[in-house]
């Protein structure tokens, strides 16, 4: 009964978040596609930036959550941290894929190439591979506890590795446009900043919405495994006593 109460609470929070996400993203799309001025140099191709940057932010946010949850899992050994970590990792992997794809779409008209080996692109690609490894080791680990521990290690190593990969490729060669938004001064028209901020908010809400959904699914998966285990034990008991 308690479990049921919890899940209905989570599902109503999920509904509210979903609604908020839809509204914010709709406003964000309007601001990005209509309200914000056309870029003088890049033209309309620049508008992909209103989804590309927020998706990159969500990917890094997701992997940051994986890192923290992974440390907490290795420390506390509570399954909930692994459920959070793997939910977030999956969202992060999806968004990293989207970042790579949208970046390519932008790079083709602006740079004249789909891909270039600059620091950010290479780091993002390597991050994608590290988290592909995260899910591969989960799939091959066999045992639930082992999958959780091993993937937690990959999550932690990946988090530390990313800045080093970035630095090393940066020294190697670089071409990506410099960050245009900093805390002190935004180097673009006000309308663009507003559109970007609303999109960032929308995608962050989207991340939270997905997290709640995914976390619920992962928790149910674990419960199912527990039930199956208990059931098979009971059956085995029945066989031995009979």
């Amino acid at each position, binding site marked *: 009964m308690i479990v049921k109460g919890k899940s209905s609470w989570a599902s109503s929070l999920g509904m509210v978040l979903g609604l908020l996400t839809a509204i914010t993203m709709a406003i964000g799309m309007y601001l990005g596609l209509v309200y914000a001025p056309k870029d003088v140099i890049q033209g309309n191709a620049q508008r992909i930036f209103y989804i590309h940057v927020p998706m990159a932010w969500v990917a890094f946010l997701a992997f940051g959550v994986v890192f923290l949850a992974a440390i907490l899992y290795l420390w506390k050994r509570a399954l909930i941290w692994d459920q959070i970590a793997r939910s977030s990792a999956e969202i992060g992997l999806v968004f990293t894929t989207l970042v790579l794809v949208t970046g390519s779409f932008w790079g083709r008209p602006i740079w004249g190439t789909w891909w270039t080996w600059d620091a950010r692109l290479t780091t993002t690609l390597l991050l994608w591979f590290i988290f592909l*490894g995260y899910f*591969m080791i989960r799939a*091959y680990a066999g045992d639930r506890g082992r999958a959780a521990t091993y993937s937690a*290690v990959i999550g932690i190593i990946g988090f530390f590795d990313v800045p080093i990969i970035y630095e*090393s*490729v940066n020294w190697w060669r670089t071409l990506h446009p410099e960050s245009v938004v900093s805390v002190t001064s935004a180097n673009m028209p006000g309308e663009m900043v507003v559109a970007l901020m609303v999109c960032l908010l929308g995608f962050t809400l989207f991340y939270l919405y997905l997290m709640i959904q995914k976390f619920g699914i992962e928790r149910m998966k674990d419960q199912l495994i527990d039930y199956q285990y208990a059931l098979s034990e009971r059956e085995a008991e029945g066989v031995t006593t009979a």
Partner: protein
Amino acid sequence: MKGGLAKISMIIWKDLLTEIRTKELFGGMLIFAVLTIITFNFAFDMTGTGKEASGAGAMWVAFNFAGFLGLGRSISLERDKGSFDGLLLCPVDRGTIFLGKFIGNLLFISLVELISVPIFAALFDLNVFQPLLLLALFLGTLGFAAVGTLLAVMAASTRSREVLLPVLMFPILLPVVIASVRVTTLILTGQTNDVGAWLNLLGAYDVLFLAISYAVFDRVVEE
């Protein structure tokens, strides 16, 4: 600490003794490294001006491949015969076991390099015997062995471990590959200005990943 050192050297000695008796690891790694170098000689044009850059790349790819082979084999040997469980039952700290396995792996890969570097130098006609280059070789191998020992232990207890180890290791090792190849190329072409920065990067990577591997090893072998 003195007792710790004795325990570490016991673990290393155990691995060396196993290798002396079975001869399963070293020969295969060495031949594999040399064959990779030979294959690269045909894959790239080694007569032209860019042979320093391609040569540095060929050397590091050869050592990485041979390293994967060695790491995977050294741990699966332990797992297959159940000796790893015995090792874990020993009344020693798990960190000590990690250090023993790590230094053992470092030793094996270094021995392979010790023999294949002169062969590489002769085949490619490059002067690789320079102190800074050898330092880069050592630092790169150290980082490889630190991450590799941890990941190999993890990969060994999964299905399809041979596939999993390189898939996990290649992306994580990229900074080591970039820095090592860069240092080697710079030294071979005589541009020694930026070498210090790359060596620092290698050193920082080694320290960081040795610390992480040491810290989480205990949790990994618990499973």
